[in-house]
């Protein structure tokens, strides 16, 4: 008698920011993709707090031109873009992703899910590079071409890079910490999987000299809000993000860093 084939689990636990998520798949090739892309963030044997089941689909099932959307429906977050559809329940701590076997879709879903998990705690993902020096984390935020990746490239050897693109800010026991992430930008490399208390958030401005200046707190909150990554324009989460930005600026120094793009700028940091 021939027994029916059973799908073997090829589950991978990926821990970012202290949130271990079990990505469940029966596709061995997709497991290899995950192990390669998230290698320093894979935690075999770690008990997960959340689970995402990935169903691998034919790429022709998706609309390549569709824009990304995130919305709340029946107490569950729904996510859609041209290359994936996903759902995530914060209450049940599980979700499902329909995508083709590629690393970019899961990467986007993970970013979205992490923003949804961080917001209720006062944390967020930020368009910023970040690094650790002397046990303290420094964030460098700005829009495209502001210098985030430049600051990462100019960092001296004693600086550990957390990310050059999407900084992970989490409030733990009343203090703000920055965590390394695998979310790489132009730098092309995942950040170190470490964390440190945030010393300063720098808002970047390329200039002819290196200078640190104070910023009016209201302007600091405004500029921070413009750089926080959040994908769901749903009232409850918008309020959480707003309050998170206000609380962050009240507790963490925010300064404008005008800099000339060479290594001397790091003499001002740390």
């Amino acid at each position: 008698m021939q027994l029916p084939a059973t799908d073997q689990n090829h589950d991978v636990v990926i821990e970012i920011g202290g949130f271990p998520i079990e990505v469940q798949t029966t596709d061995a090739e997709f497991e290899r993709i995950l192990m390669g892309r998230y290698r320093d963030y894979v935690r075999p044997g770690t008990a997960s707090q959340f689970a995402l089941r990935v169903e691998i689909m034919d790429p022709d099932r998706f609309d390549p031109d569709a824009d990304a959307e995130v919305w709340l429906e029946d107490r569950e977050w729904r996510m859609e873009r041209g290359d994936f559809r996903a759902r995530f329940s914060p209450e049940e701590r599980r979700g499902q992703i329909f995508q083709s076997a590629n690393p970019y879709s899961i990467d986007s879903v993970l970013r979205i899910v992490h923003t949804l998990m961080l917001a209720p705690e006062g944390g967020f993902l930020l368009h910023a590079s970040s690094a650790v020096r002397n046990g303290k984390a420094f964030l460098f935020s700005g829009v495209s071409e502001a210098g985030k990746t430049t600051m990462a490239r100019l960092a001296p050897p004693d600086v550990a890079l957390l990310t050059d693109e999407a900084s992970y800010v989490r409030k733990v026991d009343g203090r703000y910490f920055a965590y390394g992430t695998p979310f790489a930008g132009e730098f092309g490399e995942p950040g170190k999987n470490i964390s440190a208390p945030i010393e300063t958030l720098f808002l970047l401005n390329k200039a002819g000299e290196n200078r640190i200046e104070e910023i009016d707190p209201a302007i600091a909150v405004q500029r921070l809000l413009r750089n926080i990554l959040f994908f769901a324009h749903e009232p409850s989460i918008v309020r959480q993000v707003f309050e998170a930005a206000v609380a962050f600026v009240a507790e963490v120094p925010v300064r404008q860093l005008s800099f000339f793009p060479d290594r001397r700028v790091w003499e001002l940091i740390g």
Partner: protein
Amino acid sequence: MAATDIYLTQSNDVAARTIGDDTLIMSTLDSTIFMLNSVGSAIWNSADGSTPLSRIVHEHLCEEFEVGEEEAFADAKEFVDQLATHGILLVSETPAAPKEIQ
């Protein structure tokens, strides 16, 4: 004094915080951000649904900045209309009913 007075109420579809002399407002509908200076903050903070704009202008603009009431009212009305267009402020020709006041 303007011929037709109006009453202002802060929309519920916003997150707002006064920081120093300024007020930061974020629409929860489309995430648009507004920054109000001290004058705008005074108008925003007085938007309780029962205080007419003429009184807000008299108490917070005319006396503080020594400007004429008609000119100040016209400027304030223009500002209010901008915020109303974005759904930040609700404008009415009658005071809000007491149960509607937050």
